[in-house]
């Protein structure tokens, strides 16, 4: 199953400048692993070496933050969009 992954500006140099990349996988973890297989320099950046989502990364399945779904085990399907964004201080 192929999903569209939106790559944040800071990581685009790892993926030949692409803003979006199509990746196969049935969970978020598989999608990130697939991304790292194709672009090995991304290893450890999104998912840390101990297998957890990086503290300052927000991953969205469509419009939902996966931390409040099933985290990295959240299931994805054909046509879904996965967005990877840095967690930063918002307006206030």
């Amino acid at each position, binding site marked *: 199953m192929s999903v569209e992954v939106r790559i944040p500006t*800071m990581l685009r140099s790892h993926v030949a400048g692409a803003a979006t990349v199509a990746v196969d996988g049935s969970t978020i973890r598989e999608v990130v692993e697939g991304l790292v297989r194709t672009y090995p320099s991304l290893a450890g950046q999104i998912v840390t070496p101990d297998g957890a989502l990086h503290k300052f990364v927000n991953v969205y399945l469509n419009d939902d933050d996966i*931390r409040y779904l099933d985290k990295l085990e959240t299931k994805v399907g054909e046509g879904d969009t996965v967005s990877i964004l840095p967690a930063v201080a918002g307006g206030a």
Partner: protein
Amino acid sequence: MLYASVLDLIGDTPMLDISQLSPNPRARIIIKLEGQNPGGSVKDRAAKAMIEDAEKDGSLVPGQVILESSSGNTGIGLAMIAKVKGHPFKVVLPDNVSIERRQSLEVWGAEIISSDAAGGSNGAMRKAQQMAAEHPDWWFPYQYGNLSNPKAHYEGTGPEIWRDCPEVTHFVAGLGTSGTLMGVGRFLKERNGAVQIWAVEPPVGEMVDGLKNFDEGFVPPIFTESDGYELLDRKKVVGPRESIEWTRRLIEVGVFAGISSGAAVAGAVKCAQEIDSGVIVTIAADGGWKYLSTGAWTGPIDEVVARARKIIYF
């Protein structure tokens, strides 16, 4: 009603049933109108609590300079209170806020220190942290890390919602410092553990450039210290287009609110679509006045959305 101080006018805001906008006839939507606060936004509550708590513990003394970073509303609340209490106030403000936010700060006599638009609120916060470290004689409330911020909502906003709408099943609000969500969320869950807490945020990480890697990211200390990951049940990202669309729809029910209120209502509507039935309470963080220059209500939607992408409206 006669009041002795403008500070007594902060809080106790009205709630309005806007279920007419709900896509689900069994899901009611109620909005709390925080633009009714004297400084014009929900941030008056945190500003008042942070200042009063600092006065009590002696960390803020009469005449002391106050420094804070803000994209507008916290700054405006602090500037108003600083003015009536006689404190000089400096605010680090990102360059990409609406002109009215800047003007409102000027009204209250705030000294504006600009920070780079590309860094957004994140960059303004870093700059203020640096300035505070260089000037230990100034008082730096640090809204992202000051527990008086969520406390204002635990003691104020939360109890008001429970008093006026005890049938609440879902609370949906914007996530900035997380003060509103942490304070109201904890209060409501203590009263009824079944209440669901949903956060709404703009795609803020998309708008902040200049980070080299994820290690430079940020999660507000008040979020982690309030067990935010446990407290929140869902978090939805709502983009500028939906935010503007729902800011416009609010006009149909007589609510002239800011663009982040449109985002919050968009989140409440998503919630209404997903649940079978319930009572969803959301927050209009401010009124529409500070966004007239964006053309949010009247301009061609594509042009308005393009402009909104360039400003901080949360």
